[in-house]
């Protein structure tokens, strides 16, 4: 065998083991990065979806809607925002009181005729409670509660980061006798 033949055989040798290992390492790195991105983004989407429609807050808002819209009239409504309890008279003569007590939004209902009052905590971690009546038969409610911040603001991805305050503001028209149009 001549020196020329040896040179040709060396060039047709294909990939070496080192080249193969480098490619495998690059592919592994790529899979790791892509998998981490995908897992994190799926978690992010789920968390934002839950935050946008926090079931507890949705439930509280729905309760406030039913209470105010179903009331007959409002007791002591003013045009300026007030931190005082919101008191509504029910269609059957009962009384409903919504107030902030020790960082809890508390709903107290009394049956007509001064029966026993039923107290219920609607939401904990409420830091502010405001309401007003901009027009007869209309109630604006604004409350601030503690909530987890959007996940993308937690760049470190560490659990237990600080809570943020979210303010929910509702405008509701009373239907049960005090409203204009329904």
């Amino acid at each position, binding site marked *: 065998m001549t020196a020329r033949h040896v040179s040709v055989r060396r060039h047709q040798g294909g990939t070496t083991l080192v080249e193969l290992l480098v490619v495998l390492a690059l592919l592994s790195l790529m899979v790791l990065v892509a998998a981490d991105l995908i897992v994190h983004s799926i978690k992010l*989407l789920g968390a934002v979806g839950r935050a*946008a429609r926090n079931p507890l807050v949705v439930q509280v808002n729905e309760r406030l809607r039913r209470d105010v819209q179903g009331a007959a009239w409002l007791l002591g409504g003013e045009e300026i925002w007030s931190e005082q309890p919101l008191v509504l008279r029910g269609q059957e003569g009962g009384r409903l009181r919504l107030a902030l007590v020790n960082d809890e939004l508390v709903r107290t209902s009394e049956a007509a005729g001064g029966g026993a009052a039923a107290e219920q905590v609607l939401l904990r971690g409420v830091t502010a409670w405001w309401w007003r009546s901009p027009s007869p038969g209309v109630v604006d409610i604004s409350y601030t509660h503690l909530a987890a911040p959007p996940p993308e603001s937690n760049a470190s991805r560490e659990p237990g980061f600080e809570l943020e305050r979210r303010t929910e503001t509702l*405008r509701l028209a009373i239907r049960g006798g005090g409203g*204009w149009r329904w």
Partner: protein
Amino acid sequence: MAVFGFAILAAAGFLDAQMSAARRLEARADLLRAAEVALESVRGGVLPLESAAVDLGDEFRPLSAIRVATSVEVRPCELEGLYEVEAVARAVVRSQGMEVSITTRMWRP
């Protein structure tokens, strides 16, 4: 390196799509809230029963960083004094228009 670059591009695109979906979810909740406030304002007499653009003021600004344009369309029904009222809230979310509307019926007082 080409394969690696392509994978990074694909992952970035995937992440961007997820973020876009999350923003649209938040925006939809804000648009629903704005449409509800407009309807309740008309129902309660804070706003007149007529077709117009509605300014909800600072108290009802959206929770996410979007600018919401709200309007109310009023159409008379077959019965005298009964009107079909449609509240429409629009916003641009990540360069795409988004719209939410709620339709109900109201009596003129």
